[in-house]
């Protein structure tokens, strides 16, 4: 009998379980003591549970990677200029066994190239944060400034980062500061916009606290604005570092010098395709690490 057939007459029976057949009587003779199998004990069940969780968490990503390598192998099989996974792996091992050699400006270890790119990103991104975050606070806090700047931001934000390179070269005269300038101008917008949005979305209650207490502008900033907006700022920072790392490869291809972007271009000129594939992986992994690092930072500062 199921509860679907419940009528007032038999409802009590259903609720009290009276219409459920009684369990068969247990055999009265005592069974000989049986050793409990390991997987039925508490620790055994734990082990099974943990193993299953481990499989659930690792098998799908592993399969994904396998599929990726397989497809890549297939492509390199059918297109003859693209080296296969094994060839790429051996040349990656060779590359990373000596990452910090220095044979003059055009032939340096992969470590130097990565560090140089990171340095440029750090400079451009740092400058963008130093300008963009305070600017975002002001745009969010003062409506006049918001109305004044939003048309300019709307026009400049969608401009492709590399379109700024000629201006940088013209004004700064050198390749190095010009690429830092490109990073700066392309990674500033997410920080300005997110910070401003954060300031505008502060709950009115918090601002009323500030008003009732007559807090000074400084106290309003340190005790209310800054902590309330910090999660938004960190979102902006995360988006910006992503953009900055995307842009550096393209910028370095055009400006030259030591850096992962230029290295890709150099290896293309040498027709060393294995190195190009390695470079793609390096760019991806470094970008992932940058973003994950900032995610950790953001978690540390979220208060909810």
């Amino acid at each position, binding site marked *: 009998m199921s509860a679907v057939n419940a009528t007032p007459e038999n409802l009590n029976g259903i609720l009290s379980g009276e219409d459920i057949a009684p369990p068969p009587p247990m055999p009265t003779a005592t069974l000989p003591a049986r050793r409990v199998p390991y997987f039925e004990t508490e620790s055994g069940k734990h082990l099974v549970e943990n193993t299953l969780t481990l499989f659930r968490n690792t098998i799908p990503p592993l399969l994904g990677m396998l599929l990726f390598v397989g497809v890549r192998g297939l492509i390199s099989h059918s297109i003859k200029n693209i080296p296969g996974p094994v060839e790429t792996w051996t040349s990656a091992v060779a590359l990373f066994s000596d990452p910090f050699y220095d044979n003059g400006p055009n032939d340096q270890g992969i470590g130097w190239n990565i560090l140089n790119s990171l340095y440029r990103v750090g400079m451009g991104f740092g400058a963008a944060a130093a300008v963009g975050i305070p600017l975002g606070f002001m745009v969010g806090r003062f409506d006049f400034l918001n109305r004044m700047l939003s048309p300019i931001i709307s026009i400049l934000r969608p401009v492709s980062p590399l379109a700024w390179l000629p201006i940088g070269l013209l004004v700064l005269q050198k390749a190095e500061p010009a690429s830092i300038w490109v990073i700066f101008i392309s990674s500033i917008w997410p920080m300005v916009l997110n910070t401003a949005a954060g300031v505008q979305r502060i*709950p009115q*209650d*918090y601002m*009323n*606290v500030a*008003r*009732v*207490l*007559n*807090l000074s502008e400084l*106290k309003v900033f340190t*005790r*209310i604005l800054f*902590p*309330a907006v910090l999660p938004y700022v960190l979102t902006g920072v995360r988006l910006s570092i992503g953009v900055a790392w995307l842009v550096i490869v393209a910028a370095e291809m055009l400006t030259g010098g030591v850096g992962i972007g230029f290295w890709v271009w150099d290896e293309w000129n040498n027709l060393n395709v294995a190195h190009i594939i390695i470079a793609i992986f390096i760019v991806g992994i470094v970008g992932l690490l940058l973003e994950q690092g900032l995610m950790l930072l953001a978690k540390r500062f979220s*208060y*909810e």
Partner: protein
Amino acid sequence: MQSYGQIENAGMVFSTKKGKFTALTDINLNIDEGEFIALIGHSGCGKSTLLNLVAGLLDATEGVLLLANKEIKGPGPERSVVVQNHSLLPWLTTFENVHLAVEKVFGGSESKAQLKARTAAALELVGLTHAATKLPGEISGGMKQRVGIARALAMEPKVLLMDEPFGALDALTRAHLQDELMKIVAATKSTVIMVTHDVDEAVLLSDRIVMMTNGPAATIGEILSVDLPRPRDRLALAHDPHYHALRSQVLEFLYSRQMRPKEAA
């Protein structure tokens, strides 16, 4: 003799996209020092607007509001506010939330140790000494509301303004906090204005109940003096015929005379 607080011909007109909206009109009320006033009315009658006028969070478009012979211009710590959703800063501990207020009001005249002692005393008053290092997210709704009250009281305000302070709490917690509030107000002799929609709460706590007509253009419909002796005990009052008579008067105003907004307006 002039009253401690005076509201004279106050009115509030909001400019909205659809034109002008008159929320309050012709509000006249005198408030005595140490008096507990409850504002009651149907939702949308502008009782919170009136409270915000006294708080200074809104500026009256007509009339004047005076406190101790000074016109109310903008918000200030001498009129501290407790709101329904407590408005604690979630990144500060309960101690820091209260301390922020204490520091602002007394920071100029007292030492750091004195400020800390004041903060601790305010938390003790609401029975939350043990939760001083907790963040608002880590304590219950009733405890948060008590921190809000501690913060408001720690400023030693001339007037304590409360906007449905217990509205979001369950009945048992609410009763407990009402009892605590009565004790605290008896001890501190604070002047209190409280917005509520709970008839029992209004009769239990207040000296006078200000009953508002329905909006728009709401005004004070009737004022009821609650002459029950203090200290009041909710259990004894449950059997007190005078308590029930007062309660009936408020209910009659709310549900018989102000039931249909259009006829009342």
